[in-house]
């Protein structure tokens, strides 16, 4: 993982996209997993990062651009959170989705009418740098997810998901906790967008704010298992890899095949493949025990 020198370039590129989806999925799940507020605004935060990179890429040093991409996404998510987190369930999801689309159209309008362009060039950076940068962001995202999960705030977020009223009763500052966690998850999406933009070199609003970036993290987390960080990571890795294979092998049917695989997983492993794996390991251990007992008998 740490030695891309010996890996062919296309592998490095595909590893970087796997990292990107790991970041999007895990940071999405930090907020939406325990609270059950299914956000479909990932594309908005990711896209903001991409545009920050396109606008400020020439002005600042890369790490600064990445940080700013995260920071502005954070601030934006904070404002969105303040105004929308009173919405619950389906309404929240639809609102966040609408918001993401609204931003796309606003940026489009701005570019055409005010900036006078459609797309923008982003200064390209070599694949190895992108790879290492993504690796750092992945590690930071995982660390944050782990720390939140371990702390009392992780449990508090889960209590909000299970009964917001009871969470209020025991003295959890429900709204503030929700807004801040939402903003933190947006930070990593924005940072990730700012870095990934350098790989695409040319971007326009429909690339940067592609709704797929909102849907994929949700699907990947469900696929892997929302409740466990390793499940989310596994989901992101397998799904991205699968997409690569399906896209090259079945360019016309790949979305269809994708859908079928997802349906099968949800039907047989409602808690994701992490659960399936956990069960398999347990069964295996039991099997070993069984053998041991037979020996004794």
């Amino acid at each position: 993982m740490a030695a891309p020198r010996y890996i062919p370039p296309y592998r490095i590129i595909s590893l970087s996209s796997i990292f990107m989806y790991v970041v999007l999925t895990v940071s999405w799940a930090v907020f939406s997993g325990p609270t059950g507020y299914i956000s479909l605004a990932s594309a908005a935060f990711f896209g903001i990062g991409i545009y920050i990179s396109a606008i400020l890429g020439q002005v600042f040093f890369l790490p600064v651009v990445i940080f700013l991409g995260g920071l502005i996404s954070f601030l934006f998510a904070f404002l969105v959170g303040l105004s929308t987190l009173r919405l619950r369930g389906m309404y929240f999801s639809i609102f966040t989705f609408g918001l993401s689309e609204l931003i796309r159209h606003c940026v489009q309008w701005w570019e055409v009418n005010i900036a006078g362009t459609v797309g923008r060039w982003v200064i390209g950076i070599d694949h190895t740098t992108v790879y290492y940068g993504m690796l750092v962001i992945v590690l930071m995202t995982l660390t944050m997810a782990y720390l939140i999960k371990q702390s009392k705030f992780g449990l508090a977020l889960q209590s909000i998901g299970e009964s917001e009223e009871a969470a209020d009763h025991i003295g959890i500052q429900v709204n503030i906790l929700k807004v801040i966690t939402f903003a933190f998850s947006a930070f990593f999406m924005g940072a990730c967008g700012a870095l990934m933009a350098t790989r695409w070199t040319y971007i326009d609003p429909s690339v940067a704010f592609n709704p797929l970036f909102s849907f994929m993290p949700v699907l990947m987390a469900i696929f892997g298992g929302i409740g466990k960080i390793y499940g989310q990571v596994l989901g992101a890795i397998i799904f991205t890899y699968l997409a690569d294979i399906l896209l090259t092998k079945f360019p016309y049917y790949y979305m269809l095949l994708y859908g079928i695989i997802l349906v099968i997983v949800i039907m047989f492993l409602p808690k994701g493949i992490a659960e399936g794996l956990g069960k398999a390991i347990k069964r295996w251990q039991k099997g070993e025990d069984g053998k041991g007992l037979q020996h004794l008998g």
Partner: protein
Amino acid sequence: MLKVSEINTFYGKLKVLWGVSLGISENEIVALVGANGAGKSTMLNTISGLVHRDSGHMEFLGRRIDGMAPYKIVGLGISQVPEGGNPFPDMTVHENLEMGAYIPEAWRRKEETLDQVYEIFPLLKRRAPQLARTLSGGERQMLAIGRGLMSRPKLCMFDEPSYGLAPLLVREFFSAIKSLRERSITILLIEQNIQHALEIADRAYVLESGRIVLEGKSYELLQNDYIRRAYLGI
């Protein structure tokens, strides 16, 4: 300890509480009784800051609490055991209790408090690793009371603790609630079941359509003609 005066509360345009005043002294057990829809739960939620009072004044241990955020009120030492328990179903019993100690002052001493709660309800200790959704109705109520105690309250408010429990269990719970007095916890109890409530409370207020219509010592109220006719059916 708690002084509530002239509280008016609305749900939108609907006025639910009409100038309600009540007071609780330290180490007292006070019941707030009344029929369904009289405004009892609204009164509790107003005290704990979950529902905003429209006008009126509330004071706890000499500090004004009307208009204060719920988490600050919990921090001052008021905790509420909600109706039906309302546990977090997909969290374990242990995690549910831990969450009760969420506020910083309680979090620091949560292991100690946890031992005390297990002492009051030993059954919870045996159920600790179980998910709350697998508990029976009575166990859920125990869990809710335990969670309410985890914040180390000075005043604990119970919303219909007898709700949905078998009569035998109700007696058990009420004696458990009564025993909290020995741990210097003051109690405000909401009940539809007036007979039970008056048996353990020192004093009671009778709430009807959002107004206090009667108040007094429990044994006096048990003798009161109006109460006997309207609530006890004697």
